[in-house]
């Protein structure tokens, strides 16, 4: 006897952003077939337009009165947190698009496929920010990763690019395998994949058996890889160096953020009861990540590679709030969560900005060596100033956005107030000083050193890059001066139990 099939309730308003992006990526793919080389430039515009278009439903959702829209048994939720991050991903995607336009065009790489993959990856991220269920998270993760693997190898004829792709792919797959194993155990223990239900079963003695511990650990490892936390960071520098710079920017910001989003959901909804596991774990990861990242960054001569390590270190700062979120009964959970989200927003802007500058400069110097930045200020003052802004923001010098990000982190730390937390805070503080050294050394190159090859012809920066620079710089400075902006996003920590 056939069972009646009850189609699930789907809130299409809530799904609108994803749907739009899906449609657009389909259009891009199709259009790619019918356009011949000269008109390919259209594609990027279509994609960009699509991303902006997808913002519209996000706004309408944000303004709509009823703010938590839960679907399919709580497996897919659109709330404030989800909206903010979707917006972030769209924004990042748009900037990366701007960075890539000329790059892809001039490097005569496949354009249609490039934008298509970019969009699908972004789609994965958007799904991730709403996913509240292991399966959905897994699918979203793969959706954002797999295109990224291929994008990393997009400079097909370049060995470094190939190598980057392979390393990223292999380690990525391994990490997700480990994560899956962990997920399977969690499912085996709870019999469900919905995070909220898992969360309910994370209390009591049964929840404290080693198996659960192991499972949680494996899952975290899977994402620790994504956010390139030491000791799971090894792929990052190589991949970043090899991949096409816009893709690098994308990886270092978007997919990293994706990983953090997943972690936030898993930890705060799913495993919050087991802070005894992930608290110390994140503590170790954070300390290692900050320190190792910064120390190695000190020794880099290639700017992309240096930025790679810097972004590792930054991930370390972002991990700090996780470490203390559970201490003394999750007293500081709320501030910690907020700190992470804020840091992610700010980090996206400043890191993208820095990478945009790298692309712009490379257009002239054709080199990624830090030494090639000598005397940049003399022939490209604008770029030099912007770069300084981004770098010092990364270093956390007020009144730039990066400073507030760090303040939020420190605030969370002291809110928890345990001696371990404070110790971690001091480590972070010291690290921020170490970091300043290599950021400042680039500034030094740009401002105080002579031009290596007396060539002082100014850099021709295409409009798209100018736009990208404009947006990122604006964000960094405006937030720097008016951090209150965050308040307008409503409660960012809508996941905290």
């Amino acid at each position, binding site marked *: 006897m056939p069972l009646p099939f009850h189609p699930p309730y789907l809130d299409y308003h809530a799904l609108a952003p994803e749907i739009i992006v899906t449609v657009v990526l389909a259009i891009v793919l199709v259009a790619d077939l019918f356009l011949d080389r000269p008109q390919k430039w259209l594609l990027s515009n279509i994609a960009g337009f699509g991303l902006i278009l997808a913002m519209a439903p996000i706004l309408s959702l944000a303004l709509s009165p009823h703010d938590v829209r839960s679907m399919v048994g709580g497996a897919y939720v659109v709330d404030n947190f989800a909206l903010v991050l979707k917006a972030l991903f769209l924004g990042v995607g748009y900037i990366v698009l701007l960075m890539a336009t000329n790059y892809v065009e001039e490097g005569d790489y496949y354009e249609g496929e490039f934008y298509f993959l970019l969009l699908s990856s972004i789609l994965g991220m958007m799904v991730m920010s709403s996913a509240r269920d292991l399966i959905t998270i897994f699918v979203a993760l793969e959706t954002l990763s797999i295109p990224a693997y291929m994008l990393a190898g997009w400079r097909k004829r370049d060995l470094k690019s190939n190598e980057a792709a392979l390393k990223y792919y292999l380690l990525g797959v391994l990490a997700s395998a480990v994560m899956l194993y962990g997920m399977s155990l969690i499912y085996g223990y709870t019999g469900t994949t919905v995070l909220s239900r898992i969360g309910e079963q994370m209390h009591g003695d049964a929840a404290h058996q080693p198996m659960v511990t192991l499972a949680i650990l494996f899952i975290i490892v899977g994402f620790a890889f994504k956010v390139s936390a030491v000791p799971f960071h090894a792929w990052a520098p190589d991949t970043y160096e090899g991949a096409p710079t816009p893709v690098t920017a994308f990886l270092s910001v978007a997919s990293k953020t994706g990983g953090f989003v997943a972690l936030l959901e898993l930890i705060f909804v799913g495993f919050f009861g087991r802070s005894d596991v992930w608290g110390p774990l994140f503590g170790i990861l954070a300390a290692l990540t900050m320190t190792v990242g910064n120390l190695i960054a000190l020794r880099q001569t290639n700017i992309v590679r240096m930025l790679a390590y810097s972004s590792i270190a930054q991930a370390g700062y972002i991990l700090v709030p996780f470490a203390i979120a559970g201490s003394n009964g999750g007293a500081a959970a709320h501030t910690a969560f*907020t700190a992470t989200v804020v840091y992610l927003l700010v980090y996206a802007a400043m890191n993208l900005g820095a990478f945009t500058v790298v692309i712009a400069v490379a257009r002239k110097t054709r080199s990624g060596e830090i030494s090639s930045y000598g005397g940049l200020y003399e022939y490209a*003052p604008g770029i030099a100033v912007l770069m300084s802004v981004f770098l*010092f923001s990364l270093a956390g*010098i*007020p*009144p730039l956005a990066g*400073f*507030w990000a*760090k*303040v*939020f982190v*420190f*605030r969370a*730390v*002291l*809110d928890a*107030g345990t001696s371990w937390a*404070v110790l971690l*805070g*001091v480590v972070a*503080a*010291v690290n*921020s*000083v170490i970091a*300043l*050294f290599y950021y*400042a*050394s680039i500034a*030094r190159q740009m*401002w*105080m050193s002579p031009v290596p090859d007396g060539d002082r012809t100014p850099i021709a920066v295409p409009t798209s890059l100018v736009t990208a620079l404009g947006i990122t710089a604006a964000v960094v400075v405006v937030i720097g001066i008016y*951090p*209150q902006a*965050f*308040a307008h996003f409503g409660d960012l920590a809508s996941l905290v139990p």
Partner: protein
Amino acid sequence: MLTVAVFLPIVGAAVLAFIPRQREEMLKAVALLVTAATTIVGISLLFGFDYGDAGHLQYQVNHGWIDVINSRYHIGVDGIALPLLLLSMVITLLCVIYSWDHFPEPHNPKAFLILMLVLETGMNGTFAAEDLILFFVFFELVLLPMYFMIGVWGGPNRQYASIKFFLYTLFGSALMILAFLALYFKGGQTFDIPELIAQGGTIAHGTQLVIFGGLFMGFAIKVPMFPFHTWLPDAHTEAPTVGSVILAAVLLKLGTYGFIRIAIPILPEAAKSWAPWIGLLAVIGIIYGALGCLAQRDMKRLIAFSSVAHMGFVMLGIATLTNFGINAAVFGMVAHGLITGMLFFIAGSIQERFHTRELARLGGLLLQAPRLGWILGFCAFASLGLPGLAGFWGEFPAILSAYQPAAGLSELTFRVYMAVAAIGTVFAAGYLLWMFQRVAFGTVKAEFESAHIHDVHIPEYLAWTPLLLGILLFGIFPHLIFHMTDQAVGLVTSSVGAVSSAAGR
């Protein structure tokens, strides 16, 4: 009103940014205009100020700023902040004037002036801020322009000096911000300085000590106090003239101001426990700086070390936690600002004329440029604390106050400090006169006999006269400053419970 005073310069900087760098005259004119306007605003503040109530904040502005962390845009000035605020305004104005026709290499007035204006906003803001986060933002805002000023327009060793200055101060600030946040959570979830002062006393003593330690690192490095001073000589030696002037005249004051405005009133008990050690470092600094001076060959470096000594007096005054001491400290800050600023100006002009600062090669300045020479003499005497000139009122009361520190501090310890500090004044006389003799007296060295050395010229006169007048004026009418500071200081020390020992009897 106050907001204008703080942000006018940075607006000016923004304007400058849109003027093509070729239009130098215009750039300079705008910069001059802005700084002058700022100063005028400052002066009007001065006139609008209610001296009868100098103890309390005036011109307060208190808007919500970052509700997320409950930090507010709260500014205001009391008798302590006002003179320093004006100092920074005037100094910047004069620096603009001074650099009118000689910008250091690489020329580029546009960038230079922009930096100077940003710097001014930072300094004014720090003196006006009444909210820890706001304070910190301005406090740090000062770093970058100075970093670039030293690093781009500085001397041969500039890169090292600039990065050292930068990292050093930032290290302090890193711990400072932690301390601030700790205050936030321990002191009733607010960054508002007045509120914290009201509640600070309630924090447990142990916690206070730790937090104070954080603050101490932040401020002591900026001052700079004895073991943390090593960035200063490098920074000063390498910095362009104007840079050194601002650095000496205003930046160092940020640290001491921090002690008076934040550390002591909010954490009185910790302050008491720390005071003897601060005092110790202070007097060590006095002697140490003086000895450092005696071993110098480079004029600018000598003046830099003298700053260490002078700030030692200021810190000694602060360490006593008495009305006398802290009044003296504030006065000392202003005086040191004027005098040392002047000395650096002169050092700059001398280097400009002789292309060297080596004492061994200079001499007979009085013969070639008598006015310059006598101005130098004047400043040297002002700096060694000659009564009737500004320097004296920073020095003498500080020593005076050490005779009888706040209740609860060991009198014996501080009397020893007093004696040492007093001996320090002799050293001061020693190295300053020695410097003066080498530079101004005697006959011209052979290598410069033929050199045409022009005497003080117009921009220099314009830039210097106010300072010189100030030195004389404050020397003769210390009241001009004390009547601002006294009440405010009274409130500070009252939190330490030192009023009884300071005002009474």
